[in-house]
């Protein structure tokens, strides 16, 4: 049904369109809804930027007055010679032109005539806009249109770094899972997830929702830092692989003198690993012209924190095992188990793994399979004051040519270094309230002010997607995360797994694998 909402009363290529609404209730229209404006030669595909009740003197006079037994004017009570006397307006932003004859799409470089009809977009309209191809799958449906699943092109999404931004509680984890599943389902690459809250394995520890391995048992491997997790392969960091930067990034209370001291120890440690070298410093042999004794003692105390990390020990190199699996096309979920609440562990492990991956991928110079590294709390690695100590800055800027792609997940995009943010080819932005975060998440985007309004007002479980993985910037209602939805819309019937298979995986999971 092509439901008319109003007519165009003003238009500008730079400022957008204004429609006089014929709706009984302005609440029927929301920011971000897609609207079609019927021009003569083109259909203007627009997004609702704002809904407005203009300031009326008569409204001010009537508001609060004690008129008894009278009809207070509203959108429906007083029809005038030119339609409703009290009407709302919608500010519309043309996004694409659809040629009525050829159906070709083009940029919105012109305006529709006065009184052009504005109507709700229909499923037919949006089907002409959004491309579906063998690399695409939906993460949800478009807002303001009858059920229509919007596809993202996961091949394009994983070609360059991308970001998923939104404040806590808005559904970022669900979206992450859907994106990961889309990447796997469309075989756009493998993923590496630092699973702080044990959500991505077979089942989520918190809510028992299905994880990546549930859907792709043979293509997802779960490693765990926590020895109590017997269902996963153990993850070990050999102290040999620890670099000064790993300590600096993970221990945020190191002073500059302490940092210098660590570098000094690293320079002189010989074949000893860095941690042991720090622990074994003989106070009597310290050259106090280079390192002050009190600084060494402070560093030693802080290094003591690593004693709690049972995964820091000698043994089989888990990293090599992971890399072999990635080469084999498998994805990795690194479960943090009980360490999940310790920020230091996360920063420490992620930095070490990312550095080794970076070195490996650069060395292989594009011959490694595509791997998308999902980095939650990205700003903690990419804040300007810490970014120089991590590999993530370079990872974001350089590694797309080596097939190592960074996906930044964050609720404070304003704290991510500008240069890194500018590398993001796609942005999936959920509700945020902090103006600086909203502004940063949309930096460089056309019509930024419109999107700032949208991002500031969209509800939970809604995401604005913009970039080359989607034809036009779009506000999407994230689909409910259920096995039915995932199988039907993302994996597709042919890839869905049988109950027998699930049972088999569950049995396998009880086996402890020893490496």
């Amino acid at each position: 049904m092509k439901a008319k909402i109003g007519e165009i009363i003003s238009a500008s290529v730079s400022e957008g369109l204004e429609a006089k609404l014929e709706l009984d209730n302005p609440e029927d229209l929301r920011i971000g809804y897609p609207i079609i404006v019927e021009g003569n030669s083109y259909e203007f595909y627009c997004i609702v930027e704002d809904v407005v009740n203009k300031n009326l003197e008569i409204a001010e006079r009537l508001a609060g007055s004690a008129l008894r037994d009278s009809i207070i004017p509203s959108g429906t009570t007083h029809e005038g010679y030119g339609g409703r006397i009290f009407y709302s307006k919608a500010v519309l932003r043309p996004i694409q032109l659809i040629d009525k004859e050829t159906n070709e799409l083009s940029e919105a470089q012109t305006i529709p005539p006065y009184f052009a009809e504005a109507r709700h977009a229909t499923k037919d309209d949006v089907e002409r806009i959004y491309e579906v191809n063998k690399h695409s799958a939906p993460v949800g449906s478009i807002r303001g249109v009858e059920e229509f699943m919007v596809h993202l092109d996961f091949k394009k999404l994983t070609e360059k770094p991308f970001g998923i931004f939104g404040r806590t509680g808005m559904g970022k984890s669900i979206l992450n899972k859907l994106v990961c599943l889309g990447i796997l389902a469309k075989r756009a690459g493998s993923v590496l997830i630092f699973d702080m809250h044990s959500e991505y394995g077979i089942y989520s520890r918190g809510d028992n929702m299905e994880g990546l391995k549930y859907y792709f048992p043979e293509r997802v491997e779960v490693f765990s830092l926590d020895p109590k997790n017997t269902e996963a392969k153990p993850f070990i960091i050999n102290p040999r692989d620890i670099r000064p930067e790993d300590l600096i990034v993970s221990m945020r209370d190191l002073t500059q003198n302490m940092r210098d001291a660590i570098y000094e120890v690293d320079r002189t440690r010989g074949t000893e690993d860095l941690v042991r070298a720090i622990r074994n410093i003989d106070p009597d042999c310290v050259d106090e012209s280079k390192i002050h004794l009190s600084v060494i003692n402070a560093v030693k105390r802080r290094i003591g924190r690593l004693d709690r990390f049972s995964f820091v020990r000698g043994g089989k190199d888990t990293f090599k095992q992971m890399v072999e699996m990635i080469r084999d096309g498998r994805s990795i979920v690194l479960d943090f188990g009980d360490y999940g609440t310790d920020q230091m562990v996360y920063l420490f492990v992620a930095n070490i793994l990312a550095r080794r991956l970076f070195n490996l991928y650069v060395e292989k110079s594009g011959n490694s399979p595509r791997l998308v590294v999902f980095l939650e709390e990205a700003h903690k690695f990419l804040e300007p004051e810490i970014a120089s100590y991590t590999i993530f800055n370079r990872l974001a800027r350089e590694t797309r040519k080596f097939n190592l792609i960074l996906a930044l997940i964050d609720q404070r995009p304003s704290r991510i270094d500008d240069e890194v943010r500018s590398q993001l080819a796609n942005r999936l932005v959920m509700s945020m309230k902090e103006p600086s975060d909203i502004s940063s998440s949309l930096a460089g985007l056309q019509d930024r002010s419109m999107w700032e309004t949208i991002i500031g007002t969209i509800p939970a479980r809604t995401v604005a997607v913009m970039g080359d993985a989607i034809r036009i910037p779009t506000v999407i209602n994230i689909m409910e995360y259920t096995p039915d939805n995932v199988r039907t819309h993302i994996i597709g019937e042919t890839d869905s797994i049988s109950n027998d298979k699930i049972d088999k995986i569950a049995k396998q999971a009880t086996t402890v694998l020893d490496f």
Partner: protein
Amino acid sequence: MKMDAGGGNHGVLLDGIKTQLGDISRFREEHKIDFNAISFKGFGPSEDALDMVAIDGSYTFLLNVSSMWLGIVRVGALRYSHKNDGYQLIDSESVDVPVMISTWKSIVNSQSERHQMIFEHKGRSTQAHKDMMNEFRYCVEGEIALSACRKNKNCIVAIDGALASYNPDMDWMGDVAQACRENDNMLIGVSKDSHTHAFNNPRRDEEIFRIGNGIAYVRVPEYFENNHRGTLHGAIYFAKFHKDAPKWFRVDIGTFKHEPGLVLSNVAAYSNSGLCLGYPYPLLEAHRFAVTVRQFKNVFEDMMFDLTEGSGLSAGDILEGLTFTEGNRKSAYHEYIDKVSRDLK
């Protein structure tokens, strides 16, 4: 007395004003209102009101060349129904009529009979062009009213103004009343002017009615109707259509004259809009529509420029003759002087 408002005669001035105010009060008290002669009747809004067709017109001048004025008259008839606590427009009819008038007798003599009659009637006043155009507006309203009365049945037909005609040669009210009778339409004329003295008292009618409360109507004394200027086509009432309404309106009832309660209760049903409490909303809307002719002035001017070719007038003639809404030429020298004066402020 030496005038010195801010100086030594201040006390004298105050005393003078006080004396005059006292006189005003005394004279007013001496003219008691004979409430026995005023028969207020209460009524309420009909719960099942007939549809209302509201008619109103307006005009704008466009051009003034050589004692001739070109204007556009716009008249609309809007049919409303009152349902579900709202006013719904269900039909409308409108016309835009270009009218050329002249205040130069030999030119008028070459024009239509209607032009000549109007000139005879209104052509000698100081603002003759406005009065004449207003007469044309009245005539076009009559044509639309007649059409509406014939087309619509069992409705209220509401005309802006009194049901009176002041020129027997152009009296269309009789035909309208007749058409209303044939179609069972209630014909009313609603005047916003209640500064009359129908009750033979120095107080204006409005002041007298202010004393009353609630929804009521009152018929004017017989002598007032008998002595009415022009030809009257209805019985004259004053009515307050809503208890919180700020104003009484004169309502002339042209048909169903002997059932004023029925007619006025139907009208009251359309008079409870918060936008114009106590005034029929359809008439407000008909007025709003009619005056849009002034908002379209630029459009009509563009039309004139497009049509100069072959008309014998040049674009320069048009430019020189453009007028303001009320017919004064834009290029008139006093307009220039006014502008300079404003700019110099």
